[in-house]
């Protein structure tokens, strides 16, 4: 019913939409960094520990955004929707 170009175009749009998932981790990492900054302001002595905890949490929070990227990559390169 649909030709190949149409499906590929729709896949590209879907890939673009999937990458919107990046908003979530962006917000999450921002919140983590903000709270870390507040914590350093309250207790400057614990700067090293706070930084490493923040980085670990941010790296884990990043995962959901990367799942969006993975879906986009699958749509663009593996092309699962093509018959």
């Amino acid at each position, binding site marked *: 019913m649909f030709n190949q170009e149409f499906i590929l175009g729709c896949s590209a749009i879907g890939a673009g939409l999937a990458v919107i998932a990046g908003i979530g981790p962006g917000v999450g990492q921002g919140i983590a960094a903000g709270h870390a900054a507040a914590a350093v302001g309250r207790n400057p002595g614990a700067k090293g520990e706070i930084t490493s905890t923040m980085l*670990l949490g941010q790296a884990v929070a990043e995962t959901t955004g990367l799942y969006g990227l993975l879906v986009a990559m699958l749509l663009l390169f593996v092309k699962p929707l093509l018959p």
Partner: protein
Amino acid sequence: MGANILLSSEDLGFMIKGVFSFYIGDTQVWITTTHVCLLIIIIMLTIFSVCAKRTMKSASEVPGTFQNIIEMCVEMLDNMIKNVMGKNATKFLNYIGTLFIFIMISNISGLLGLRPPTADYGVTFPLGVTTFALITFNKFKHQKVKGVIKGLCEPWPFWLPINLIGDFAVPISLSLRLFANVLSGTIMMALVYGLLSAVAYVWPAVLHVYFDMFSGAIQTYVFCMLTMTYVSDAIGNE
């Protein structure tokens, strides 16, 4: 296909490419760039470890440069693992240390012009499965079968399927996280070099520091940290 102009992976070299193929029976088996890069990294690490062994055999009281570097690495790994795992650390030093060094060098290898092997799901998934096997083994060893079943039926018995899915999601999320992070870095660098090739001089070095070194180091740390946390969880506090 017209739609493939932007996607022409030959120009932007971030896809896995086959080097040569051979047949086992009727199946075509490809040797890809991942295999080649893995081989290079393994050879590098082997040479390094042989040199390290030789240096540490004739270790002196006042360490030289190379001995200093080795001692620093080992001390750092020991401290990291002991901080998280406490008294269980000695049993898992070898596994986590090996994991850390291998993933670290793999992630950084983008700097050497290789395609990082960890940007291939076929490399990270076995790492995740190994960790999963370690977790499950320790669970059965320390909590016994009764404890494991009790843990699966935690709040209520009909929670069992959700707990099972949660358990099996561990290796998948671990490996996907590492894979996608390294892959995203590889894609960004390939886009910079592929699409901006006319002006890509000197300044991509800054991006390399972030995408290859910083991101790679953080993801290595996260992978090892999560492995240690899960294993400590499985052992429990007896």
